[in-house]
């Protein structure tokens, strides 16, 4: 993990880290990010939601981007300004992002019309204020964003 440094308009980079693409490492990523942002003021349910979003984006990057090849890292950059917290999660996949594009419908899943899986993107979208998926021939990046202004109103 690197020391904080100035960043672009999104604010100051708090940390850059990488995790090997091995099953279970999404939780490690989640806990490291939570530790990095402990002074940002995110608490309670909003912190738990961000942790879940980080875990799900990392899980997707390891599984679909890097195909669980341990030598391919998932890179995570955490940055913050006065008004926004950003976590960028980058894998080494190519082509379109491999998020399951079908909106999960539990009734369809229970009737066997959809696979039981496919919750990752849906969870992320419900856990953060904004998200953006970008990519090129060699990488996919998912950026998770939380507004920091006004979050003190109930912590939700």
């Amino acid at each position, binding site marked *: 993990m690197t020391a904080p440094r100035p960043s672009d308009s999104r604010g100051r980079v708090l940390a850059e880290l990488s995790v090997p693409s091995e099953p279970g490492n999404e939780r490690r990523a989640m806990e490291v990010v939570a530790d990095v942002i402990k002074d940002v003021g995110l608490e309670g349910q909003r912190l738990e939601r961000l942790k879940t979003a980080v875990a799900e984006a990392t899980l997707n990057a390891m599984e679909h981007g890097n195909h669980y090849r341990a030598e391919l890292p998932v890179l995570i950059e955490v940055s913050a300004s006065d008004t926004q917290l950003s976590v960028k999660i980058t894998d080494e996949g190519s082509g379109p992002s491999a998020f399951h594009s079908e909106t999960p419908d539990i009734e369809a899943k229970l009737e066997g019309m959809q696979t039981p899986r496919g*919750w990752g993107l849906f969870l992320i979208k419900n856990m953060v204020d904004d998200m953006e998926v970008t990519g090129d021939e060699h990488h996919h990046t998912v950026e998770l964003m939380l507004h920091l202004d006004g979050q003190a109103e109930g912590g939700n």
Partner: protein
Amino acid sequence: MAVRHLEAEVRQERGVAVLDLTGEINGFAQEALDAAYSEAESNDPEAILLNFEGVDYINSTGIALIVSLLARARASKRRLLACNLSEHYVEIFEITRLSDFISVLPDEESAIAEASVS
């Protein structure tokens, strides 16, 4: 951080099969969860209670495993209940609509009572 593989124990409580779950519900949990559910089904209970008291992490693959258990329960017309979920995972059960099909109760006592009156 080492993965805490799921452990699942089955016991009977006033006619309800209770699955005491400890660890993480993720891709590693499928075998333990399926085996415990099969053991719980073996006595043909009307209701099965998933006790999440020892669970501190559920990911999207874990949600899929719970959906699969729910599908099994519905196929055999068995009621599925859950208790001792943290506030965060109660929210996730609501967002995914698992809570439309699984009765979510705060603790085991209230879950057993709920299973008994229905």
